[in-house]
């Protein structure tokens, strides 16, 4: 199953990152760029090792993009990784290795990096295109709103609290939905995502995360994705 192999890969990348930064010196004051590029050895590897030098993430490896996400959102995630409320064997020690001040500085740093070359396009999927349909129209008889209603057309994100979904790795997005379902990630603002994730089947999750992962950075709908009736 996807989440297992994904966490293995994450562990591996973490070890590589640790090894790569073991020799670097301690940063004296909060320099978010230095932490991003070199880390804070020995506990904190360079963020860029997994999240890319521009915070762009790593699609094939399943590491999410951080650039351009909401500052408040990022800070909250670092805090909940550190406390263990958002469970992640990889991110927990890293976040816990950062002081509150350093966490805030990293959130500000990544929020300020240029996100995607955003271009929101309203999708008009067919009902048979399960992922695209859930994203654009939801499943209201089950009180599931369209993802786009909060995350924006083309999943470009809205404001501070609704992060972009477009172009994020499918495995990462799926892990988050499963984490909400199983209570291993805090329910988020007003428990919105926990409430919704509980109602999603594994098939829903696979379809909708594949859909968002395939959305290119320019926001144009992917060509010929999904089933044709």
């Amino acid at each position: 199953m996807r989440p297992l192999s994904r966490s293995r890969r994450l562990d591996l990348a973490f070890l590589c990152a640790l090894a790569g930064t073991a020799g670097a010196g301690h940063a004296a004051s909060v320099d978010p760029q230095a932490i991003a590029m070199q880390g804070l050895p020995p506990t904190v590897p360079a963020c860029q090792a997994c999240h890319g030098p521009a915070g762009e993430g790593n699609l094939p490896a399943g590491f999410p993009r951080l650039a351009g996400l909401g500052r408040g959102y990022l800070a909250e995630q670092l805090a909940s990784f550190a406390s263990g409320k958002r469970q992640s064997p990889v991110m927990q020690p890293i976040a816990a290795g950062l002081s509150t001040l350093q966490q805030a500085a990293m959130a500000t740093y990544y929020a300020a990096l240029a996100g995607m070359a955003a271009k929101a396009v309203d999708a008009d999927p067919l009902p048979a295109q399960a992922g695209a349909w859930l994203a654009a129209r939801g499943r209201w008889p089950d009180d599931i709103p369209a993802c786009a209603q909060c995350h924006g057309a083309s999943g470009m994100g809205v404001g501070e609290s609704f992060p972009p979904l477009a172009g994020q790795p499918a495995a990462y997005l799926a892990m988050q939905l499963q984490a909400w379902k199983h209570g291993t990630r805090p329910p988020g603002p007003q428990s919105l995502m926990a409430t919704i994730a509980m109602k999603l089947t594994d098939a829903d999750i696979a379809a909708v995360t594949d859909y968002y992962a395939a959305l290119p950075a320019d926001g144009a709908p992917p060509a010929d994705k999904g089933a044709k009736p």
Partner: protein
Amino acid sequence: MTSRLSQARATLGLLAAVTGFATGAIAAETATAPAAAAPKTFVPPPENAMPDGEFGKIVKQGEQIFLHTRQYAGAFVGNRLDCASCHLDAGRRANSAPMWGAFVAYPAFRTKDGTVNTFAARIQGCFSYSMNGKPPPLGDPVLVALESYAYWLAKGAPVGTKMAGAGYPKLPAPALPADYARGQHVYDARCALCHGADGHGQTSDGRPAFPALWGPDSFNWGAGMHQVGNAAGFIQANMPLSQAWTLSDQDAWDVALFIDSQERPQDPRFAGTVEATRKQFHDTPDSMYGRVVNGHLLGSEKK
């Protein structure tokens, strides 16, 4: 949930009295399964059953206008709302003024303009008030497409009956008179995350994402949603998205009063002064138009 739950409890209490069942045990059971108490509502045809051919094309067009009104009917829209902002699930959702409930309710006499309105005229009204725009002329392709879409959604619905789930639910009167300060508290806790502390909504890449609840980009003083009772019913049955029926009757009334006590675009029927306009069109406890809130005369902002 409160209203439906209390309704369910009342019904069950009666049942228990009649049959001699232990009320406590049954009430406890219903508390975990409140959805069972909801009345069955009409189910419009599934989206994949949209007709083919020339008519189907226009139905589809209507659906797209309904979802992306500014994009496809921009000439008639004067704010940042879409039809689907208040008619959720593309006009399919019960208790969210679904199109299948509206289509079969016209022609009807409306006190709003003192005439019998056809369904087309009713849609024109939406554009004038809720969309703060201009009514598409009768026969305009925008109007024809929206009518066709609503007609299709109402397939099999009984004409001329008040259907369960049509319009917005009428909530029981609140225990305490609706209150602005309590409403603001509810707003900050449950609404501001999406609609913004200033009620002006939020955009995504320049497109409206969360609709404006007041201010220049929202519905005007003539829209049905400016009436506190309508807003309270809509809010309790639909808001926050995915958490319908979680606000108590009191909270819904309070927050509706708070939202409808904010400034918004002028009523297009403006009769020269706010006072005269209130007297002619808003002389009900349901409208805050022309009343003074926090030292401001609502409806007096020049726009």
